[in-house]
């Protein structure tokens, strides 16, 4: 290989690498705020740890979790989380027996009222836990929801 060809080749390789790197980084940037790692974890405690960086949870009657006792259809389980706690930063919903326990997270602002409601899927009967972060501490409320027909897979 003569020098000119070598230079040309290395330049092209460099260009290709840069393009590929650019392509690979792009999707990450788009969803920078979406915590993919936390949503991918399949074990409850590890999931909690990845969200908060620790597992210090306090069960609190100040957190109200409204969920059905029995969900006839696991594809639609209505949930509502409410709290009177002040300075709520976020509300997270974990479902212990789902393939990925973290189902959803809600980051609130200073203007928000700490109430959120949604509908989730549940594969089978499981404990549902709502975790509220207030003044840096995590307060939780749990409830068992019995599922007759699962909403995942099929």
């Amino acid at each position, binding site marked *: 290989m003569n020098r000119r060809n070598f230079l040309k080749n290395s330049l092209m390789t460099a260009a290709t690498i840069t393009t590929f790197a650019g392509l690979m980084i792009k999707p990450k940037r*788009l*969803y920078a*705020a*979406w*915590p993919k790692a936390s*949503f991918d974890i399949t074990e409850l405690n590890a999931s909690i740890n990845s969200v908060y960086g620790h597992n210090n949870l306090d069960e609190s009657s100040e957190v109200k979790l409204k969920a059905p006792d029995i969900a006839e259809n696991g*594809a*639609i*389980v*209505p949930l*509502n989380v409410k709290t009177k706690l002040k300075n709520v930063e976020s509300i997270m919903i974990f*479902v212990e027996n*789902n*393939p*990925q326990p*973290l*189902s*959803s*997270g*809600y*980051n*609130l*602002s200073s*203007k*928000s*009222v700490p*109430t*959120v*409601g*949604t*509908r*989730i*899927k*549940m594969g089978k009967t499981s404990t549902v836990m709502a975790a509220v972060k207030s003044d840096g501490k995590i307060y939780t409320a749990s409830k068992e929801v019995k599922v007759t027909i699962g*909403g*995942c*897979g*099929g």
Partner: protein
Amino acid sequence: MSTIKLRAKESKGVVTVKAIIKHPMETGQRKNKKTGEKIPAHFIQQVIGKANGEEVITVNWGPAVSKNPYLTFGYIGAKGDTVELAWEDNQGNKDSLKSEVK
């Protein structure tokens, strides 16, 4: 037509926003019964709620949120505020809708 249905109502200084978004919310775990192939994951990852241009809630959803997801949240606001809801899914689709608080 927008994929979002949005209703915002004020009562005692608190605006309650209720929304339904039309979306399949595929988990990526279901299989096509005929072909046996996995249906690729297709779900909304993020929903951002704004009031008069200011962000009041950022919602991160995983695939475990139901099809045609429903969301309700509240913020301290007034009648006539402009509420905007915007979503983006894992395939880069997005939509948004503005509505006036009643």
